[in-house]
């Protein structure tokens, strides 16, 4: 059956400044990537999902339970990893996991649960060290460990791989894939490469609303007809920049460029539609259409 999250007609404003305007979407177990430029409302949406902010209208249902009306907020069912996960530097990772275990009022054996989490996220070498001594990678692992303790049905993760080196990012992606098997995992990110690798659903926020809601394949297929490719010289490229939105440039030789741009009403001579485009191209298309 799996888990089900639905955001229904949710709006949020700071005074007269609308941040989210009547947005609705639904997700199931697996990774849902939340994309959008800065200021699109991603963080606000995360805050609404975590119950730290209240929407002006709409509701958020998790497995039939209204998250916003449930008192107290069900922290045992929701895990949250903020973008900047930080903690008192003088406590150990074990201290933190133990505290989170207590806060979530988890019924399982504490030591076994924490040991299992420590092993799962390879925190063994540092778990009894002060968090202040952790590297960025270990800190991020501890962050995800505290979020998944108690096996929540909804995981909200803000910029999970930001600041990690490529090896750590790859490792983290595998953690996310693993934990999203039986939990709705909503990830806010700027890193399109990550999204392409692990997301089964993408939601793009633009101008306070949802610009796209679908899979990676759907996002690409929807944008392919609007993205054109052209091989040209430098002077033509400069002229084209004033007419269309160029989304990718590749220098082929001294005065030859292969560019991709978003098609507008006027077609550009010699341009053509490619069979494949990157997810990043598609994302830029949705942000600019």
């Amino acid at each position, binding site marked *: 059956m799996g888990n089900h999250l639905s955001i229904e007609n949710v709006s949020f404003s700071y005074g007269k400044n609308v941040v989210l305007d009547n947005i609705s979407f639904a997700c199931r177990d697996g990774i849902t990537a939340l994309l959008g430029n800065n200021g699109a409302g991603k963080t606000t949406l995360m805050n609404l999902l*975590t*119950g730290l902010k209240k929407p002006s209208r709409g509701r958020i249902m998790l497995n039939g339970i209204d998250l916003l009306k449930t008192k107290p907020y069900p922290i045992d069912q929701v895990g*949250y990893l903020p973008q900047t*996960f930080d*903690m*008192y530097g003088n*406590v150990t990772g074990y*201290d933190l996991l133990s505290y989170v275990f*207590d*806060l979530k009022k988890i019924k399982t054996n504490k030591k076994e649960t924490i040991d299992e989490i420590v092993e799962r996220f390879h925190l063994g070498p540092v778990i009894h060290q002060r968090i202040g001594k952790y590297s960025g990678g270990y800190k991020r692992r501890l962050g995800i460990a505290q979020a998944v303790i108690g096996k929540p049905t909804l995981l909200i993760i803000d910029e999970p791989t930001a600041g990690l080196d490529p090896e750590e990012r790859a490792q983290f992606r595998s953690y996310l894939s693993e934990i999203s098997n039986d939990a709705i995992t909503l990830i806010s990110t700027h890193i399109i490469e990550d999204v392409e690798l692990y997301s089964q659903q993408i939601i793009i926020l633009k101008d306070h609303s949802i610009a796209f809601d679908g899979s990676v394949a759907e996002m690409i297929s929807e944008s392919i007809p609007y993205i054109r490719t052209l091989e040209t010289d430098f002077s033509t490229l400069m002229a084209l920049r004033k007419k269309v939105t160029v989304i990718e440039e590749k220098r082929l030789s001294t005065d030859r460029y292969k560019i991709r741009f978003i098609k507008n009403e006027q077609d550009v001579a010699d341009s053509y539609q490619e069979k494949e485009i990157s997810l990043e191209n598609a994302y830029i298309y949705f942000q600019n259409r």
Partner: protein
Amino acid sequence: MNGFPTFYIKAMIKNPIFFIYISFVLFFVYFIKGSLHITIFEFVRLFFHGYICSNLFLLISTAWVISKRYESLVFLERDVLKKQWKLLFSAFIISSVVALLPMAAMLAFKNPLTDGSFLWKGLVHFFILWTLSNMLAATIGTTIGILVQHRASILLSLLLYGYFLWKSINTTITYQQKLLNIFDDYMQVETNTMSGTIFNLNYFLDKLFLILLMLFLLLITYSVYRKKKTAYILLAVLALLAMKGVVIYGEKHVQKIRAYPTAEFAHVPYAVQTYKMDLALTNRLKNTAELEMSFSSAGDAINLLLDDCFTIDSVKVNDSPVKYSHKNNLLKIDVPYRPNETKKIVVSYEGDVQLEDDLGVLTYYVTNDAVNLPGWLFAWYPAMPEPKPSYYDVRLDASAKIYSNLGIFTGETERKGETSSLSLFAGQYQTLTDNGVTYILPIDAHLDVFQSSLKGLINQAAKARHRTLSASDLQSLQNRAYKTVIVGSWPNGLDDEGLRLVGDTLIVNDSNY
């Protein structure tokens, strides 16, 4: 364990400041350990650097911990006020555990003459001072931390705490300023060794004031973070009013030593021939004093001194109730008398005896285990100033061992004898004998030092131009014609050389020797 704030205790203590704090506490314990040979109360009084050190640690650590708003904890904890309570609980646990260090020192190095009840009182008194000042510091730290949510909260907390510290170390004696002292009220004023700390109404009002102050600070955070802001603001105002109420109530109930109307007694034509007392000393004094009075000329009222701290139940003359008034420490009995007549006057009265001198130091007191009633100065029974010798028949019931110029009372005892006044003392005393003289001295006194000091006092009195001691008394003192010496306590501004010879008992003022 759910509910036990292990996480925050660790967050507070796993840092170098905690070890500096513990080191300082141990240093101060070591530094003033010698004061335990005087009394535990002296140690508690002198340990204020330790309190300040502990307060600062808890203030800084709670302000630091609560001002850090980690998003993942904000999400999990939800309620910052619950976090504040967790931190206060953590502070209480840390405070209580660290308190064991000075308390252990108190037990290990205490004056061996310390009686069990005084030991417990000393430990409890220390724990109360330590805990309340620590909890106030933690409340200031968490409140400012919550409101400011920035590192600057540490500085602001220090400023607010600094205000109370300044009030505490200032030698001010108004009642309100004493309430603002977060440590021992007698931190700057040396009290007598015998009484120890007295858990009286003032003591509890003093602590209630601090608790209300903490409540006020907590209600401010509630008024900011809870929906019913108006209700919490009103409660905060109520807490403030209650603090003011404590000041008013306390000021009204403080018993101060007031001058007696001795002018009323110029050439009175009567004298007390015998006193018969049925006296009970618990935390208050209850007495039925039967006076046999003789009269040398006629009159229509008898004046006797009796302190206003007592409430009179009845006055009977020759077994019949009579009209009387009792104000300004003067008992006026409306009864006519004729020359050469004798009358039996029975006065039943009781009251709390907790009289403070001008500096706010408790001077005359009656508690279960400490008594200081110098009879020639303090009218604890109906008497006249500078009385002539009378015959006393006193039955006394008290839980403490009572030393007097009529002998020692233990439990329910009756003592008789002729004396000009009856003085009663109890507390932290030791009894020593030397050359047939019994010395009843504070537990910290050394006999040889005391004797040398006494000799100096007598020599000084002999050289003084104006002295209250009569020539015959001075002669008796110089000839060591006394059998008992008791150290008592009375205001040392009375210009009385700190010595009083009552029959064969010499009473020495604690602050003079």
